[in-house]
C-alpha cells in the first residue's frame, strides 16, 4: 500500500516520455517542494509506468497524457486497484484529452506551464484526497455537462450537475481559489472540496455498471 516516505513527504512517480521534461520537473520539485514532495521514480512509457507504480506504490503519479503505449489513460486503466492517485500533467489542453483523462480516473489536470510551487500545491492537494481543477478544466466540465463538447463514450447515464455544483465550477472557472469560493458561497472549504469530488465522480462514471462498482468498492452496497 502507498505510504508517505519516512520524512513525511508525498512520494511521487513521474511519467513522461521526454527525459528533459522529467529532469526539469524533478529539479523544480526538489527546489520548490523540498521535504513536502519526493520523486521516487520515473517512467517513459505506459508499460514502464505500470511496472514502476506497481513496484513503488507511490501516493501520487504525475502522468503525461500523451504517452507511448496508449497514453496516460492506458496506465490508469491497467493499474490494479490501489491507493495510488493520478495527477495529469500535459502540454495538451484539448477538451477531449482533458475530459478523457479525468474520466479515465485522474484526480486533476494541470498543464505543463504550471509553476513549481503551484505544482507542489497541486500534488499535496491530490495526495490529500482532493481534486485539482484549474479554471480551464472547470470550463471544460461545464461545457461537457452542457452538451457543447462531444464526449465520445455513451453519456446517456451521465448525471447532471446540481445547481450548487455548477455554481462552484463557475467560480473555479472564473479563477477563484477554493477558499474564495467558500467565502463567496458562504460554505466551508470542506464543502467546496466535497462538491469538487462529486463533480469528478459524475465525470468518471459513465454507466450504471461503473456506478455499482464504485459503490461496492466503497462498501456502500
Amino acid at each position: 500500500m502507498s505510504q508517505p516516505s519516512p520524512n513525511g513527504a508525498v512520494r511521487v512517480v513521474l511519467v513522461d516520455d521526454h527525459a528533459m521534461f522529467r529532469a526539469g520537473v524533478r529539479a523544480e520539485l526538489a527546489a520548490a517542494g523540498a521535504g513536502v514532495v519526493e520523486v521516487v521514480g520515473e517512467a517513459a512509457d505506459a508499460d514502464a509506468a505500470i511496472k514502476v507504480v506497481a513496484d513503488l506504490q507511490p501516493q501520487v503519479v504525475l502522468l503525461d497524457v500523451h504517452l507511448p503505449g496508449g497514453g496516460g489513460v492506458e496506465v490508469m486503466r491497467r493499474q490494479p486497484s490501489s491507493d495510488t492517485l493520478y495527477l495529469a500533467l500535459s502540454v495538451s489542453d484539448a477538451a477531449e484529452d482533458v475530459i478523457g483523462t479525468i474520466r479515465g480516473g485522474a484526480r486533476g489536470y494541470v498543464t505543463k506551464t504550471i509553476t513549481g510551487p503551484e505544482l507542489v500545491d497541486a500534488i499535496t492537494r491530490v495526495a490529500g484526497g482532493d481534486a485539482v481543477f484549474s479554471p480551464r478544466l472547470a470550463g471544460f466540465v461545464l461545457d461537457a455537462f452542457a452538451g457543447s463538447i462531444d464526449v465520445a463514450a455513451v453519456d446517456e447515464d451521465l448525471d447532471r450537475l446540481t445547481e450548487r455544483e455548477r455554481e462552484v465550477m463557475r467560480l473555479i472557472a472564473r479563477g477563484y481559489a477554493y477558499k474564495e469560493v467558500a467565502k463567496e458561497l458562504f460554505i466551508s472549504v470542506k464543502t467546496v472540496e466535497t462538491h469538487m469530488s462529486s463533480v469528478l465522480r459524475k465525470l468518471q462514471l459513465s454507466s450504471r455498471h461503473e456506478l455499482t462498482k464504485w459503490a461496492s468498492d466503497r462498501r456502500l452496497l
Partner: protein
Amino acid sequence: MSYANPPHPTSPRSRPVGPRRAYRDTSSSVVGGVASGLAAHLAVPVLWVRVFFVATALLQGFGLMVYAGLWVFLPAGQGFDVSSPGLESATRTGKRPGRRSRLRDAGPAIALGALLFGVVLGFEGIFGQGALFWPVVLGVAGVALLWRQADEAQRERWIDSSGRIDPFRAVFGNGGWAAYARIAAGLGLIVTALIVFAVVAGQVTFALPVLVAGLLGLAGLAIVVGPWVMRLVDDLGAERAERVRTQERADMAAHLHDSVLQTLALIQKNSHDSTMVARLARSQERDLRQWLFEADTTDAATLAGALKEMAADLETDHDVVVDVVTVGDCPLTEELRPVVHAAREAVVNVAKHAGTRRADVFAEISDAAVDVFVRDRGSGFDVDAVAADRQGVRNSIVDRMARHGGRADVRSAPDEGTEVRLHMPRTAAPDEENR
C-alpha cells in the same frame, strides 16, 4: 437549463459542404456502427434505431438483412475526421487511447447472442429443420466474419501513415490474434457450410445443389467485390483530399518550425531580459497550442474567438497573461460587440493598475445571455472611493454596457483583487444567429 446549444457554424465536427451522406460511426460501434451512424444521420436517439433493428429482426430477419446491407454499403465515417495535428499525430504514434470495442462489456455481446439464438429458433419454428438452413447460416456467418475483418483491415490501412499498401496488411490489418481468429473462423465456417451442404443435399438430386451452390458463389462474389469496387471509387476521392490536406499540413509545419526557431533565436539574444523572454515564450506557446490542440480557429466571427483574439492582442501589447475560458459559443453580433470592448477595457485596467501580471477571463454563453467575468488577484481598490473625474471604469465599462442594454458590476476590495462582471441578454433572432 437552456444549455442545449444548436450546432453552431464553427462546430469542429461540421462536414465539408456537399450532399448530406450517412456514415457508419466507427467510434461508437457495438457491431459495425450502423445504428449509431444512422441515428446521427436521421437525428434520432441511437436507442430507437437499435430497437428498430432488433424489432424488425424478428420479422424473419428483415432487420438483420437491412443491417448487413447497410454495413456493407455505408462508408466508415471516421476515415478522415480531421482533428488538430497535435492530437492526430499523438493518436498515430499510439500516445493516446485508441478506439475501444464496446463489446468488452458483456451486455451487448449477450444481447447479440440471444438475438441470434432467437432468430435461429424462430427460423426453425417457421420452416422446420430445412435441409438448406444450417449451411446457409454457417455460410452467412463466415462471410460476416470475413467482412468484419476486411472492415478492420481497411480502417487500419487508413490510420497507417507509411503510405504503402502491404498485401499482408491489407488482409490482416495490424494482425493480432483477433484478426487471425476472424479469418480462420470465417473461412472455416464457409468450408463447413459447403461440406454440410454437400452431405445433406448431395444425396437428393444432382442439379439442384449445383444450381444453389453456383448462385451462392455468385452472391458471395457480388457481396465481396461489389462494395469493394464502390469503396475504391470513394477512397480515390478521399485519398486525393487527404493528399491535399497532407501538403497543407506540411506547409504549416514548416511555417511553425520557422516561427519556433525564430522565437528561440530571439530568446537567446534577449536572455538577459526576463520580461522579453517570458513574453516571447508566451506568445509562441499560445501560437503552437492554438495550432496543435484547438481544432477551431480563433476567428473573430464568434464571441469566444473574439475574446481569445482580444486576449492575444493584450498579451502582446501589455505585459500580462490572460487566461480565457469559455463555455458555449455564439456568433459575434453587433449587440455583443460592446461586451468584448468592455472586457478588453477590464483586462487593460488589470494590466495597468492591478499590479499583477495575470488575468482570468471566463465567458459563459447560453441561449438567454452572455456573462463575462474578468478577475485578477492584484492590489484591488475601494470602488466607492474612486474620484468622480476618473472615467475609465465608469465610462468604458459600466456606461457602455448600460447603453447597450447590459449590466456591469465591479467588485473590488483592497488586497483582494478585482472582478468585473458583464452581463448582456441575448435578443438576437434565431435566423440571424444561424447565418
